[in-house]
């Protein structure tokens, strides 16, 4: 090391120790930013490589067309012959079942259950040989024997299915059972937003299952192209050919990829956004810290400049110091990110398979860290431009970083302020008045506190309010169910009609029950502009009673109400007429209204009238007499009727929403911890610097007769007040802006909701703000408590 560099190094090291607490805080903020940024980037990279890897082994189609009904094979062959870019194609036959038609059982333990609560279409297929293979954990495409089934990995995850379990499908001609042989990943339908999933059975089992009836036969026409880029051209050509089957969705390779990236990448995007927020906070703090440091060092800087050291070299000493801090922060953040990534990518790994943690992940992490470091260092450089403006004379004589013109301007500003404000006539005591005057005079610096607390309160409030919305009783109205006390579901039983009669009789005879409504679940074939669709319709007296319509009204006789997603899919609006096919007959119903529903994949409908024969299930909505405990009643009925699920409505909501709410609860807890931590950290840093800055004023107050307790109390009060302003505004902001944010979220999630009324939890909103202010207060107390017995004359010494 050259003597000059050695000197600089010594300076850097010494100075770092000087401001230890502030520097540690700075490192922590940078580390948190770097950790979130790095984690977000790495999760994204993991997701994309996992998707790539799965695409490589499974080879999803470059273009596919779904269809229900007859397929003209000759037309398809003609189409393929005319298009040389088609490398390979086939028609995949599938038969789809409602989740309620599927049950599982574990012979070893006798445990069992159904897949009824999943909102997903279950499609049975045979393994594809050429492409669009469904692959197991070893990346092989298993071909099941008769009596064996390969189940989507999602069910392994969500229900805990195991190899050896039995899977039963209720068909029109009785139940059929398979043994689970393994689990498969599905490149086409792996996304957590996908509304369908595929089970693999043998060719002959598939034929038998289709023949058994009760399922919905469906096909996918799939194409593999010589160049995936030609997919959209082929899509156009396909759409233009009237002979080709196309009453379902047409999907290209890019769309599949995009869907994967969006659905499972949202968390990563959220991480990156929070990281950006944190970097903004870090930049504010850095500016504050650097400026403060320079003001403290100004005489030294003036002396160095006086002996002819160029400003650039002086600046470099400081830049080296803060770059070092940034580097340490980024290194720590990077290490944390490496630890966090496996936890966050577990879901991705199940759906898409584990990609080898290759060099690309490391590279992405390094780039993210470098970006954070770069932003931080550039922020420092900006703040350090002040060094160049320090004038030797002003620095040495007045100890000011300002040049003469700035000094004069500042003096004028101070003079104006001094003339305008007045201590006399002050209400609320001299001390409070003085604090207010100080706050106004140093507003630029103090504004750091409310800004940070606003951001933190917002960050804490948003997920908490989303959670309380999902948990509010009002949310029932988004689940296509009336607000009743107890709900009973019977489905899939051999003696469905007998059960219904028994349960109806029991409930009507029970004097604890005030009212019972029975809705039948019917699968109806509805004519849509692009072909027929099967729609789950609830039929009953007042089937849509107590359900809020976002458009139109509840259905009367001859009318139907559609869920939002069904209205979209059937391209039907209020007042339109729909044709329903029932066997050979068909009848017309008028759409009376549209409502929001997240159950059954968001695709439901309600009709007024008597339950028709041949219903696939029944739902009982039970209102209880005054004072009857729904939990106890539900439990007693659940026990008495083994094949009926009887649940208090609150429990039903909880069960249905549990995967969503638990995710939000985790986020809310995390955000709270995070917000409080960051707020405390920034307060400590800020106050540390503020104490140094206000030392002389504090000494003056002490000299004229203010007690140390009063002086420190003033500082604590200023901190708490500014924090309260920020936290209060942030809490209000989260409540008011939360609604629009939520609407954007639910609309883009495509779960069948258009508009959610935010049900903010007032306790959470005020509690969060109070906790933040308390954190600020505690930080202030912690920092000032050791000054209590200080000899205040030292505050006046240089």
């Amino acid at each position: 090391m050259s003597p000059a560099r050695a000197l600089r190094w010594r300076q850097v090291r010494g100075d770092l120790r000087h401001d230890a607490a502030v520097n540690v805080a700075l490192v922590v903020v940078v580390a948190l930013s770097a950790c979130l940024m790095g984690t977000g980037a790495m999760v994204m990279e993991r997701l994309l490589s996992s998707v790539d890897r799965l695409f490589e082994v499974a080879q999803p189609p470059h273009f596919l067309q779904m269809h229900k009904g007859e397929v003209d094979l000759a037309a398809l062959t003609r189409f393929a012959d005319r298009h040389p870019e088609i490398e390979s194609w086939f028609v995949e036959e599938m038969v789809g079942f409602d989740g309620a038609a599927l049950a599982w059982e574990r012979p070893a333990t006798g445990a069992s259950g159904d897949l009824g609560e999943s909102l997903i279409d279950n499609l049975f297929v045979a393994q594809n040989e050429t492409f669009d293979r469904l692959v197991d954990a070893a990346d092989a495409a298993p071909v099941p024997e008769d009596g064996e089934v390969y189940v989507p990995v999602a069910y392994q995850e969500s229900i805990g299915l195991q190899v050896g379990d039995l899977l039963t499908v209720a068909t029109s001609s009785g139940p059929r059972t398979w043994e689970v042989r393994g689990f498969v990943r599905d490149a086409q339908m792996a996304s957590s937003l996908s509304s369908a999933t595929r089970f693999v059975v043998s060719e002959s089992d598939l034929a038998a299952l289709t023949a058994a009836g009760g399922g919905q036969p469906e096909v996918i026409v799939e194409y593999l192209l010589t160049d995936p880029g030609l997919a959209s051209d082929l899509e156009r050509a396909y759409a233009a050919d009237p002979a080709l089957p196309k009453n379902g969705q047409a999907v290209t390779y890019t769309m599949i990829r995009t869907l994967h990236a969006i659905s499972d990448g949202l968390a990563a995007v959220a991480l990156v956004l929070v990281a950006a927020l944190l970097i903004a906070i870090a930049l504010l703090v850095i500016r504050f810290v650097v400026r403060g440091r320079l003001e403290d060092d100004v005489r030294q800087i003036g002396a160095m400049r006086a002996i002819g050291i160029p400003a650039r070299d002086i600046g470099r000493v400081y830049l080296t110091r803060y770059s070092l801090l940034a580097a340490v922060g980024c290194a720590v953040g990077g290490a944390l990110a490496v630890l966090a990534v496996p936890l966050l990518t577990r879901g991705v790994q199940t759906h898409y398979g584990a990609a080898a943690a290759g060099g690309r992940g490391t590279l992405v992490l390094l780039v993210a860290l470098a970006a954070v470091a770069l932003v931080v260092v550039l922020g420092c450089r900006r703040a350090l431009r002040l060094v160049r403006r320090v004038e030797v004379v002003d620095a040495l004589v007045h100890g000011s970083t300002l040049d003469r013109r700035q000094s004069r301007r500042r003096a004028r500003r101070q003079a104006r302020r001094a003339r305008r404000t007045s201590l006399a006539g002050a209400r609320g005591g001299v001390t409070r008045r003085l604090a207010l005057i100080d706050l106004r005079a140093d507003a630029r610096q103090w504004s750091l506190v409310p800004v940070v607390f606003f951001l933190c309160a917002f960050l804490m409030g948003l997920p908490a309010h989303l959670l309380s919305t999902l948990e509010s009783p009002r949310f029932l109205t988004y689940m296509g169910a009336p607000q009743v006390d107890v709900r009973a579901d019977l489905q899939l039983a051999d003696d469905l009609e007998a059960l219904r009669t028994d349960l109806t009789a029991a409930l009507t005879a029970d004097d604890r029950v005030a009212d019972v409504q029975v809705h039948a679940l019917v699968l109806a074939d509805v004519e849509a502009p692009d072909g027929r669709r099967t729609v789950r319709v609830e039929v009953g007296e007042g089937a849509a009673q107590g359900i809020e319509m976002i458009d139109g009204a509840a259905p009367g006789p001859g009318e139907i109400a559609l869920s939002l997603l069904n209205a979209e899919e059937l391209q039907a609006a209020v007042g339109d007429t729909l044709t329903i096919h029932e066997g050979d007959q068909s009848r017309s119903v008028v759409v009376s209204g549209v409502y929001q529903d997240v159950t059954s994949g968001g695709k439901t409908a309600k009709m007024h009238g008597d339950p028709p024969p041949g219903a696939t299930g029944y739902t009982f909505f039970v209102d209880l007499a005054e004072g009857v405990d729904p939990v106890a009643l539900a439990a007693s009925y659940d026990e008495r009727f083994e094949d009926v699920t009887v649940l208090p409505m609150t429990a039903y909501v909880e069960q249905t929403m549990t995967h969503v709410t638990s995710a939000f609860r985790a986020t809310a807890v995390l955000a709270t911890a995070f917000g409080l931590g960051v707020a405390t950290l920034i307060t400590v840093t800020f106050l540390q610097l503020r104490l140094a800055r206000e030392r002389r004023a504090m000494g003056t107050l002490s000299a004229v007769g203010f007690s140390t307790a009063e002086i420190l109390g003033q500082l604590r009060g200023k901190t708490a007040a500014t924090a309260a302003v920020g936290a209060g505004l942030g809490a209000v902001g989260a409540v008011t802006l939360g609604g629009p944010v939520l609407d954007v979220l639910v609309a883009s999630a495509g779960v069948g909701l258009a508009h959610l009324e935010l049900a903010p939890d007032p306790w959470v909103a005020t509690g969060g703000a109070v906790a933040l202010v308390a954190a600020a207060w505690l930080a202030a107390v912690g920092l000032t408590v050791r000054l209590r017995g200080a000899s205040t004359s030292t505050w006046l010494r240089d």
Partner: protein
Amino acid sequence: MTVTLECRDLTKTYTSTDPPTDVLRGVDLSVRSGEFVAVMGASGSGKSTLLHGLSGMDRPTGGTVHLEGRDLTALTDAQMSRARLTRIGFVFQQAHFLPNLSIRDNVLLPALKAAPREQRAVLERVDALLERFGIAHVRDHASTQVSGGQLQRASICRALATEPAVLLADEPTGALNSSMSREVMDAFTDVHAAGTTIVMVTHDPACAARADRVVYLRDGRETGTRALGPWHAEDAARREDELLGWLRTLGF
């Protein structure tokens, strides 16, 4: 005459240094009511430390300080700052004014705090003080907008606004040129003539010559005291010569 301010065997040791620094090693001083005492001594002899101890800003390591018969060292922080607010005025070498307040508000600050309910009386008193020391015309200025002499006179106003029992001053002319210095010393003389008790630290024999008595500190001990008698402007030069002669014998 009654004794206003008195310290006995006052010691102060800073333990933050290694080895600990004994700055005051047993100082005895009693100041009679209405007396003007100047404290002199070489740099580092402990003069400022003595004043801080007398004002209660620092707690001495040992000894007692009595102000109007009350032992300051036995008071709590709150009581001590109350005593400082109402019974002690302090003037520093640098004015130490709050930058966000006008001259008048700086002067008002302790007086308003001491008697918040007598705002009108306090305002009248302060305005009269500003008038008396010739700075009424700059009262709405910021502290950066007035001369050093004006600022120091404002400092004296602030110290007197609470009508204290004693005025402590630590090199009040140390940062001023000689004409401003004279301005400020005239103010002190004026205050003294009106009956206020003063303890002033100074390096300048011309300033010290204004006092009734000069105390000399050396290495934290009082090594000499000399009474000068009442001040008359006519024999300023003679007093200064006499004082210088005495100081030389002490190694000044």
